[in-house]
């Protein structure tokens, strides 16, 4: 497969692993920010191939994992009580709210649908003028353009029955939140390639400088990951702290200006609550006032009580990379993918589920 097979070449992976082993003279701790990278690291068994002194820590880049509990409750409420057709990306469905997940709401009769694109939801709104269609707009900067575009389309079509329930989160403020935690041990970052495809890499220069930390924009295939790790360690060994782009075949320094324009037209930056972490200033998107008609939060003004997270769940520490999933007392015991205590055990991108599904450690 063009552009994939080259980046899955075992010989090249081994070459980079050798190079990493040769240059890493001490213990280094690197965080891969994006859940997709976590998924690939464990799926390909890469963690077991890295030298022992190179520690990978899984970051908060799983949008499903950081969507606040009360927002899931709200989605469930809208689907069950307001009779809306609640549309969502697939892996959001299994995440437990305080009482039930969207999948359970669906089983009890609510109209919950899995879509690949919010534009499908707009189509649904057009086809069902008598029904309210709500799209659960979660995700990082990667899903924001399509979600924004859906609002533009709905406005252009004059649709009154389409709205989005927004829980967009942004990567750079999350990286800062990780670094601002005194307990952090992170010495370098693999920045999320897909996010940079949209947003470009400019945001990372000030962060790299402020915290004196190497940041390598990295892709998702095995060769991407080992190359990104190699580049990070090379900088660390040389005492450098720069932004580099490993994913140059996809990421342009300026990102995708068209997509950014769409985002800026529809969304503005806001403070956002991250599940397990708390409110991070300027870390999310919300709809601009001129698109208020498409804001499910305004359209359906329901008060959802905030519920305490399970005290046994250390999701916040896992998401910030302070603890490994298997260091949790409930990992694989009370907390499994069938009965998750926290969201990172649900999404296949979540650090806990990734470990549970793919790592040897989970079962030994």
């Amino acid at each position: 497969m063009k552009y994939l097979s080259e980046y899955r070449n075992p010989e090249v992976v081994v070459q980079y692993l050798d190079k990493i082993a040769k240059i890493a003279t001490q213990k280094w701790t690197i965080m891969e920010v994006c859940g997709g990278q976590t998924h690939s690291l464990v799926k390909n068994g890469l963690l077991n191939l890295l030298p022992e002194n190179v520690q990978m820590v899984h970051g908060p880049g799983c949008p499903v994992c950081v969507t606040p509990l009360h927002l899931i409750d709200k989605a469930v409420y809208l689907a069950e009580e307001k009779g809306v057709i609640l549309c969502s990306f697939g892996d959001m469905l299994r995440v437990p709210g305080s009482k039930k997940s969207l999948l359970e709401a669906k089983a009890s009769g609510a109209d919950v649908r899995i879509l690949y694109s919010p534009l499908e939801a707009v189509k649904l709104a057009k086809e069902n003028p008598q029904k309210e269609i709500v799209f659960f707009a979660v995700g990082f900067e990667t899903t924001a353009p399509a979600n924004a575009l859906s609002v533009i389309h709905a406005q252009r079509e004059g649709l009154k029955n389409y709205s989005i329930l927004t829980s967009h989160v942004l990567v750079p403020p999350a990286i800062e939140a990780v670094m601002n935690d005194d307990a952090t041990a992170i010495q370098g970052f693999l920045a999320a390639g897909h996010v940079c495809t949209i947003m470009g890499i400019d945001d990372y220069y000030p962060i790299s400088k402020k915290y004196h930390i190497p940041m390598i924009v990295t892709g998702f295939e095995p060769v991407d990951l080992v190359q990104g790790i190699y580049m990070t360690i090379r900088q660390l060994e040389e005492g450098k702290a720069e932004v580099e782009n490993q994913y140059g075949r996809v990421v342009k320094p300026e990102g995708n200006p068209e997509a950014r324009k769409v985002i800026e037209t529809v969304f503005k930056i806001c403070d956002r609550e991250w599940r397990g972490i708390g409110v991070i200033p300027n870390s999310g998107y919300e709809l601009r006032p001129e698109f208020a008609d498409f804001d499910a939060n305004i359209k359906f003004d329901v008060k959802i009580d905030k519920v305490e997270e399970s005290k046994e769940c250390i999701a916040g520490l896992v998401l910030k990379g302070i603890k490994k999933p298997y260091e949790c007392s409930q990992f694989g015991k009370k907390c499994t993918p069938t009965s998750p205590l926290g969201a990172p055990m649900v999404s296949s991108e979540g650090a806990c589920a990734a470990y549970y599904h793919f790592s040897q450690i989970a079962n030994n």
Partner: protein
Amino acid sequence: MQLQCPMPKVDFEMITLGHGSGGLLTNKLLASGVFDLLKNDLLDERHDGAFINLQGKTAFSTDSFVISPIFFPNSNIGELAVNGTVNDLAMCGAIPRYLSLSFILEEGLSMQEFWEVLVSIKFACEKAGVCVVTGDTKVVEKGKGDKIFINTSGIGTVHPQANISLKNVNAEDSLVISGNVATHGIAIMSVREGLQFDTDIQSDTQALNSAVLTLIEKFGNDVHLLKDPTRGGVAAVLNEIARDTHLGIDLFQKNIPIDEQVEGACEILGLDPLYVANEGIFLSIVNSEIAEDYVQLLRTLPEGKNAQIIGKIVDAHPKQVILQSSIGGKRVVNMPVGEQLPRIC
């Protein structure tokens, strides 16, 4: 194929509740051509059940089919319902003989669609060499079903040389797959509402009994276990085997055959092909001494062109399936939790 069996002239265009009442309308539906289409001596007796004579060890299996949509690239629920039970019997080392066929129809189903499904059933039966000898039709109110649900049960005669059992699985046995993984599941997904994408991936549903028979006649009790990895995919079946035998399974990712388009679709949808449903392939656990010959023979058969040895049974890591990734890493392949849900990004 449908052209050979034109729909009979009937004075109704859709199925109504009355067609499941057991009365005149039911008789009208059956007399419209259902019996003729599936005609055989045993069915023609039109009794409450079929009288059959079987000799020797007999295998018996049942399966229900609720697939949505009922028509999908290259096939439909009817063919699937026949092949599904035929293959379950084949996995027992049996030669499938007789099927029962039960429909639960949703009120409002068009007669045209029902007829197309029936015709597919007829041809699938002919291809697999089985007869429908008894059946049932019920109709449920609109909204209480999803067009058509089908249950088939089947009886087959176990081949005298077959000795298929979990008990026969030993460490060092080889794991063979007969063809590409994930094809059927991705073909279905490509036509699901809300997930449609342009592709020419077609379901690979097919009867596997003829291929299995050829293999058993040649390799007899060196064939230790046969399984068709349908729901839950290869991962679920292998986990069941590992759990029940208390043995470990090593999987070699680089040997697992997959169509390039299917692989691409899995990438885009964020699905792991090992967990995607299959219909037209089977897994064999065989004595490692004959594994190469087994694969060679399988590859000469139309059902097994892409056959590969994809793993081996081991004493190490009991009850665990461990994949050796193409790049040399290792990971545990766990039992799937529920249905695979597409990832956000």
